[in-house]
C-alpha cells in the first residue's frame, strides 16, 4: 500500500503513509480485544482477515493490473480443498496444509493463466468463469474424494509445534487469529513488495494504457500471466486459511457467488487502493453477519448496499476518504 500512496503524496507528508500503515496494523493486532466491545467475536475477525486476503489477492489483478476475473473463487476453493485434503488424507499438519493450499491454488491458477492471458475484457472474464465452473463441478461430482455437495469433513486444524513451545490453534481461537494474521502479513507483505518493485510499476503501466506499454516493449501478456499467477498463489493461501477456519471444505467455496462477492468487496472498499478490499471485506462480512441474524431477506439488503455503493461511491469507501483528504 505504502508504495502506491507514497508515489502520490508530496514530500512534506511523506510520513503519513507510514502512520496510516502503523494504524492499520495496530487495529488488526488489537482486533480480538476491541471487536467484542462492538458486538463482534474472534472468529468473525479471523473470517474478515481470510476473506479480506482473498479480496486483496483478487484486487492485485483487478485493481493493479486492470484485468477482471469473475472466476477467482476457483483458486480460493482449490486452496480450501488442498488444505482440507492434506489434513483429511495425508498428514495432520497445519503448515503442510497451508503450503498445499497455496500450491494447489497457485499452480492451477498459473496453468489457467497461461491459457487465457491473451484474452482481453469480456472474453477474459468469461473464460475465468468457465474454468471456475469446471473446478466447481469436479468438486461437486467427485464424491469419493471431495465429499461432493456434502463437503469434505472429518479434519481439524492441528496445533503447531515450534520445538520449545506449541501454538494451540485448534482449541484457542485467539491463537488461531494470530496465526491467520501472521500468514496474512506474509502474503500481504509479499504483494506490497511486488507492487513497489519495477515489475509492480509495469503492471500499473499495463493497467493505465496497455497499448502504450506494448509499444514500450513490455511483454504485456507475460505480465498479465505473472500477475494472474501471483494472485492465484495469494488467494490459494486465503483458501487454505478458510479450510482451517471452518475445519470444512465444500463446493460453494469455488462457486460463482463467492467470485461475485469478492468483486463486490473490491468495489466496495476501493479498487485503486491496496487496503480497500480489506475494508470492503470487513464491511461485507459484518453486514452479512448482522443483517442475516435480523431477517431472512438479508441477501436483498446486501444487494441494495452494493447498488448504492456503485451508484454513489464508484471509487469505493477508501476512494471517498482519499478524495476528502485531497480536498
Amino acid at each position, binding site marked *: 500500500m505504502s508504495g502506491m500512496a507514497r508515489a502520490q503524496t508530496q514530500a*512534506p*507528508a511523506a*510520513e*503519513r503513509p507510514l*502512520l496510516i500503515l502503523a494504524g492499520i496494523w495496530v487495529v488488526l493486532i488489537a482486533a480480538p480485544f476491541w471487536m467484542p*466491545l462492538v*458486538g*463482534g*467475536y*474472534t*472468529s*468473525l475477525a479471523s*473470517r474478515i482477515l481470510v476473506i479480506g486476503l482473498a479480496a486483496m489477492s483478487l484486487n492485485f489483478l483487478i485493481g493493479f493490473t486492470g484485468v477482471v476475473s469473475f472466476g477467482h473463487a476457483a483458486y480460493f476453493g482449490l486452496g480450501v480443498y488442498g488444505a482440507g485434503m492434506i489434513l483429511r488424507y495425508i498428514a495432520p499438519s497445519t503448515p503442510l496444509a497451508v503450503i498445499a493450499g497455496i500450491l494447489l491454488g497457485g499452480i492451477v491458477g498459473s496453468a489457467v493463466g497461461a491459457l487465457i492471458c491473451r484474452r482481453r475484457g469480456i472474453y477474459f472474464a468469461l473464460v475465468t468463469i468457465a474454468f471456475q465452473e469446471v473446478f466447481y463441478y469436479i468438486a*461437486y461430482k467427485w*464424491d469419493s474424494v471431495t465429499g*461432493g*455437495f*456434502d*463437503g469434505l*469433513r*472429518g479434519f*481439524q486444524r492441528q496445533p503447531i509445534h515450534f520445538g520449545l513451545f506449541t501454538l494451540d490453534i485448534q482449541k484457542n*481461537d485467539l491463537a488461531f487469529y494470530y496465526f491467520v494474521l501472521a500468514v496474512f502479513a506474509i502474503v500481504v507483505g509479499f504483494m506490497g513488495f511486488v507492487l513497489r518493485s519495477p515489475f509492480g510499476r509495469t503492471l500499473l503501466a499495463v493497467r493505465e494504457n496497455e497499448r502504450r506499454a506494448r509499444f514500450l516493449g513490455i511483454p504485456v501478456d507475460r505480465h498479465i500471466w505473472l500477475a494472474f499467477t501471483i494472485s492465484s498463489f495469494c488467494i490459494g493461501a486465503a483458501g487454505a486459511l478458510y479450510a482451517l477456519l*471452518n*475445519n*470444512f471444505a*465444500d463446493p*460453494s*467455496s469455488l462457486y460463482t457467488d463467492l467470485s461475485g462477492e469478492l468483486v463486490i468487496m473490491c468495489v466496495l472498499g476501493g479498487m485503486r487502493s491496496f487496503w480497500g478490499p480489506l475494508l470492503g471485506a470487513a464491511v461485507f462480512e459484518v453486514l452479512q*453477519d448482522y443483517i*442475516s*441474524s435480523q431477517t*431472512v*431477506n*438479508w*441477501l436483498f439488503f446486501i444487494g441494495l448496499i452494493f447498488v448504492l455503493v456503485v451508484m454513489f461511491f464508484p471509487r469505493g469507501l477508501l476512494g471517498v476518504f482519499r478524495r476528502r483528504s485531497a480536498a
Partner: protein
Amino acid sequence: MVQGKPSGRLGRRGVLKAGAALGAIGAAQISSPFIVKALGEQPFKIGFVDPLTGSLSLLAVSEVQGAHYAVDEINKKGGIAGREVQLFVEDSANDVGTGVEKIRELIDKDHVDVTMGDVNSAIAYAISQVATEKGILHIVPGGHTDPITGKDCAWNVFRICNTTSMDANAISEILIKKFGKRWYFITPDYAYGHTLQAAFVKNLMKAGGTYEAELLPIANSDFSASLIRAKAYKPNVLLNNMGGLAQIDCMKQFVQFGMDKDMALGGALFEIESVLAVPPTAQAGWWDMEWWWDQPGVPYVKEFVTGIVDRYKKPCSARHWFGYVGIYSFKLAVEKAKSTKAIDLAHTLEGMELPPEIALQPGKVFYRAGDHELMPNIFAGEVHPPAANEPYNLFTVADLVPGDQAQPLAETGCHMTYPS
C-alpha cells in the same frame, strides 16, 4: 506529518459529544462485570440453524414455527429449570458453508447453551461436526441422512426425524406388493438422496427387482429430460426422492407430461407442505409421513394441532412436531439432569422416553441409547386430494411402523464413544 490542531470539521461540541458517548460506553463496559447474575436470571439460549431461504424453506419455516411454539409454551410455564428460554434462529440459506459459519456464530458470538438444525442433510451433517468439536449438545430435527446417527454418530448429537433407511424400509414392501418391482428413481445428488436411494435399492434387490436412477442437483427445477427418460423406462413406480421445492416442481411436471396415467408414484417423504403445493392430480401415491396430524383418540394431539393451525394459519405438519420435540427434549434433559453440561445432558437423553403430551402419538417414543435416534412411529399410507371441507385431510394412514422395527440398532453402524 499529521497536523497537531483539530480539523475544522470537528468542533468543541463535537469533541464533547464524542467524549460523552465514549464515556457512556466505557462506563457500561466497566460496570457490567461487577453485576453477578443468579443462574435463574440468565436465559437458557438455544441456537437453531435452518434453511429459511432456498428450496427447503417451506419445511424449515414449519420447524422453526414448531420451535417458537414450544418456547412460548415453556416460558409461560416458568422456562427451563426456572430460566427463560431464548431461541436464536439463523438462516443457513440451504448452503453447507453458510450453515457452518452460522453455527459457529451462534456458539462463539451468542454463546448458546445448545444447538439445533438443519433440514438439509448435508448441512445437518456438517454442523453436527462443529457442535461435537465445540462440545455442545446438538439435536438434528429434520436432516435424514443415515451417517449422522450411523457410522459417524457422536456422543453429543441426537436426531428426531427418521433415518433414510427407516423411511425406505417402512414403505418399500408396500410399493413392491401394490405396484411391482420395476422402479425409477429421481434423487437429489447429496447425502440425503444417496443414502435414501441406497436403502430403497437394497430392499428392491432383496425382492429381485430392477431399477434405473438419476441423480440431480438438490435445487433442480427442470425435470423434463429426466421424466422423458423415466417414461421410456416404463417403470411400475416413479420414486421422487427430491425434497421441498424441487419435489414440487418435479410433481407438477410429472402431471403436465401426463405420466400419472402410465405409472404409480411413491417414495419416502411427500410432506404436507409439498402435497398442498401441487395440483390435485399429483396429490397421489404411497408415502411415509413422519408424523401425522389426524390421530383420533390419541391424547394431546388435537390441542397441539389446533394451537399450531390457529397461530400460523396453516396445516400442522411433521416439521412443526420436529421443532416442538427438539425444544422440549432440551427442557426434559436439563430438568432431569439438573445440569446444562453437554455430557450430562447427553447421558440423560439416552433412552429417555417422551411423555405423551410431547410424543403426540401412540406407543413408546424414546431416544435409542445406542445411536441417539428418536424411535417414533412411521405413518405409511396413501396421499390423495383433500376431502370435502377438510383441506388438510390429504393422507390416509395404512400402517404404523415402529421406528425400532424399521431399522434395528445393529444395522445402523453406530459405535458410540464418549470423550474421556
